[in-house]
């Protein structure tokens, strides 16, 4: 692992300079890291063997930015998000929030951490207690962390939070089943906002919503970020959504980050064959371009995280796999400034794929 750790340090050293980068004007205080994972591994014992859901992931989220995390289901992206709240226990590596190492924090201390990092879940129906009113769900962080004095103040704060997410105050007395999917997700967002967190982990926040509602929720998230200076880790399998939302993005495959960069870099110039394959699956609105679009079809399913392939993990599905790929486990290496890929033939392989 030491080799990859070194590579990660380089990544970290290379990125913070971005304050000077015109590409990321949104960042007010680019130096401040709100949360980070350092060579994190999360393994789950199962009857079939040890599932390596996350297997050596390093990432940093800085104040005011949105870091997009993409990957197909089973890539470990959600587990990485859960690790930031310590909702899963890391097998190895470090979780840091606001500079503090929270990897070994006790349950009691973790409760305080969970005010600083909030989470919005994929299925808003499942993430709201059917027995509680909307108001009670939103008020839970306020009660747990004693953020308001008394019922009247709490009620006012709940009204304020509902207003922030574009819901009428009278919905506070309703139950989740009386709301639409979009409204429920707004409630989930209001609950995440209640504790004024430093970081909000958005775990596929729009994946289970109707298409028309997805855009509304994305716009709401962007508006809230602009107005409140929020920091997001945006987890999704939808590349277009991540590109739309993010200042930086990371692509995950089988428990590892295979490529990081700005959305523009990754969109225009993917360096990892997996990213290129993902991108080729995104439809284009321009009919001419859509006709020219060449889809890269990956063969087979994502391999079992119980027994990941040796060498490069993507080689079993990579159209450009070469003998060397079975020998060496590639680390994230710089292709352009701020743009890194974990491929022995970064760039070259993608060009070969596209010219076929």
């Amino acid at each position: 692992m030491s080799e990859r750790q070194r590579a990660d340090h380089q990544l970290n050293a290379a990125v913070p300079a971005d304050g000077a980068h015109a590409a990321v004007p949104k960042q007010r205080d680019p130096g401040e890291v709100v949360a980070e994972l350092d060579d994190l591994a999360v393994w789950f014992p199962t009857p079939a063997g040890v599932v390596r859901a996350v297997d050596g992931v390093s990432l940093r989220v800085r104040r005011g930015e949105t870091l997009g995390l993409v990957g197909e289901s089973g890539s470990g992206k959600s587990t990485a998000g859960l690790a930031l709240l310590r909702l899963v226990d890391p097998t190895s590596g470090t979780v840091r929030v606001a500079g503090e190492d929270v990897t070994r924090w006790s349950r009691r201390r973790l409760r305080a951490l969970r005010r600083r990092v909030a989470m919005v879940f994929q299925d808003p129906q499942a993430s709201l207690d059917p027995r509680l009113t909307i108001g009670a769900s939103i008020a839970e962080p306020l009660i747990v962390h004693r953020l308001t004095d008394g019922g009247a103040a709490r009620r006012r704060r709940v009204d304020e939070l509902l207003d922030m997410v574009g819901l009428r105050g009278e919905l506070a007395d309703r139950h989740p089943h009386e709301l639409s999917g979009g409204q429920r997700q707004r409630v989930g967002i209001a609950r995440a906002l209640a504790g004024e967190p430093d970081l909000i982990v958005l775990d596929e926040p729009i994946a289970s919503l109707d298409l028309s509602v997805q855009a509304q929720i994305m716009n709401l998230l962007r508006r809230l970020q602009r107005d409140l200076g929020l920091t997001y880790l945006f987890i999704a399998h939808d590349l277009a959504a991540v590109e739309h939302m993010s200042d930086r993005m990371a692509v995950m495959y089988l428990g590892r980050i295979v490529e990081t960069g700005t959305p523009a870099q990754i969109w225009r110039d993917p360096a990892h064959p997996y990213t290129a394959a993902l991108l080729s699956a995104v439809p284009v609105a321009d009919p001419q371009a859509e006709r020219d679009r060449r889809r890269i079809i990956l063969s087979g399913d994502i391999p079992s995280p119980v027994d990941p392939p040796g060498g490069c993990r993507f080689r079993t599905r990579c159209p450009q796999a070469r003998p060397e790929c079975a020998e060496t486990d590639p680390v994230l290496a710089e292709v352009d400034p701020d743009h890194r890929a974990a491929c022995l033939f970064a760039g070259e392989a993608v060009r070969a794929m596209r010219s076929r």
Partner: protein
Amino acid sequence: MSEQQISREGQVRRALSALRRDPLALTGTLVLAVLVVVGVGGSWLAPSGINEVDVDVMLQPPSWAHPFGTDELGRDVLSRVMVAARVSLQVGLVSVGIALVVGVTLGLFAGYYRGWLDNVLMRCMDVLFAFPVLLLAVAIVAVLGPGLTTAMVAIGVVYTPIFARVTRAGVLSVREQVFVRAAVSVGASDLRIMRRHVLPNIAAPLIVQTSLSLAFAILSEAALSFLGLGVQPPDPAWGRMLFDGRGFVTEAWWLGFFPGAAIFVTVLAFNLVGDALRDVLDPRQLTVSEARRSTA
């Protein structure tokens, strides 16, 4: 207004309006109401004293003077049945109360924390569960000596494993729900999650279990007093009266019939109300008028 009040108020209102619409539930509720009145005020309401022996009217069939007839000592059966209602209700409520509090607490911790705690607690429950109900109750009474209090404790112990199991089963499914993870994610403590999220979501099976257990506890008490291990004579209890009447089945059917009917009606009423409550207490089930209101 506290968060609890907001959600409770709607539930109570809905429960009441649904009970009014369901004729069976309404009947059950009315029977229970009468039972409670009789149980509380039995000794004042009863037409005559329970131990008023009158040798002139021994073993008389039901009449205007004695609607339920008289027993072999000339005591008024109606009065004794009315006063015995208190014993049955008291035993039912106290013993089920014990079983509910102890069983739910054990089941909650076992199901929430799993692991060795779960194993130890549930194996203890299995041991209790393995005994036939009555045998266990008899054994406990044998150790503690017969009487009303020991009968209540015995029945409470006997029904504890059922509550522990029902609770644990519910907790096991609820704790995997996303909303529990969401509660953890905002920093809620284990106790808060158990109280605010897990318990309310397993309330429906617990309420049904409670009403069923009340019925069975009253039956168990009847069985214990039938065996002479519950309330001691001359105090009346339905089971005891059943026992005393068994020698006169052919010549004086009313001695056994009326206490038996009282047991039957009480058990039925608890079951009817329990079923109705189960239907009503699930907020996901909307009535038509409510559905209309929420979409308007």
